[in-house]
């Protein structure tokens, strides 16, 4: 079973459908082997209209490069990926990181909102990742 990703510039992306109790929608996840957790960032929280009641404050500290953030997780999200002839449905907690956009200068806000949500090792490691930028190949295999 093969899940095909796409390069945008030099960055590898996968599309996915997320479904939870109070929201459902699509996300465009950048595959990031440097990130331990699959994490939704500010833009997708807005696009998916994730209710704050569904986001549980994360007890584990999340450390990244950049300014201060609030971290949450959403329990038991159903994440669907498109494979060649079937869909792959995974159920897992998804992390959410939110910047305090009210306290950030407007030009910085637009940069933060450009940041993509990431597919982390919690998901990638369930597959065999094949990656060859020069041949335009990025895929998850099982």
């Amino acid at each position, binding site marked *: 079973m093969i899940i095909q990703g796409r390069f945008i510039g030099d960055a590898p992306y996968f599309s996915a459908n997320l479904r939870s109790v109070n929201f459902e929608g699509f996300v465009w996840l950048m595959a990031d082997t440097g990130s331990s957790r699959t994490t939704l960032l500010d833009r997708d929280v*807005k696009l998916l209209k994730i209710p704050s009641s569904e986001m549980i404050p994360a007890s584990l500290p999340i450390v990244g490069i950049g300014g201060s953030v609030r971290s949450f997780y959403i329990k038991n999200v159903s994440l669907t990926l498109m494979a060649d002839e079937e*869909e792959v449905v995974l159920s897992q907690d998804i992390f959410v990181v939110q910047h305090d956009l009210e306290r950030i200068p407007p030009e910085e806000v637009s*940069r933060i909102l450009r940041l993509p949500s990431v597919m982390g090792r919690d998901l990638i490691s369930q597959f065999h990742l094949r990656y060859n930028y020069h041949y335009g190949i990025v895929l998850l295999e099982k």
Partner: protein
Amino acid sequence: MSKIISHRIDELHNFETDHVWIEENMAKILEHYNEQWIAVKNRQIFASDVDLNGLLSNLPDSAHTCVEYITREPLEMVL
């Protein structure tokens, strides 16, 4: 596969195609939408706004729409 699931998968495929379409047509899109958020469905820009919240207020279904910020400003990402 049920028709509903099959329809959703088709939509997800279109969502992916829309992201790739933006990348492939960035030069042309920049001419008209520089420093704006755009919403794309089926390889067509159907809404734009300088502000993301402004764009979202005009989208009937933001959760299934490809939304991107168009700018000439390069952004180095170290996440």
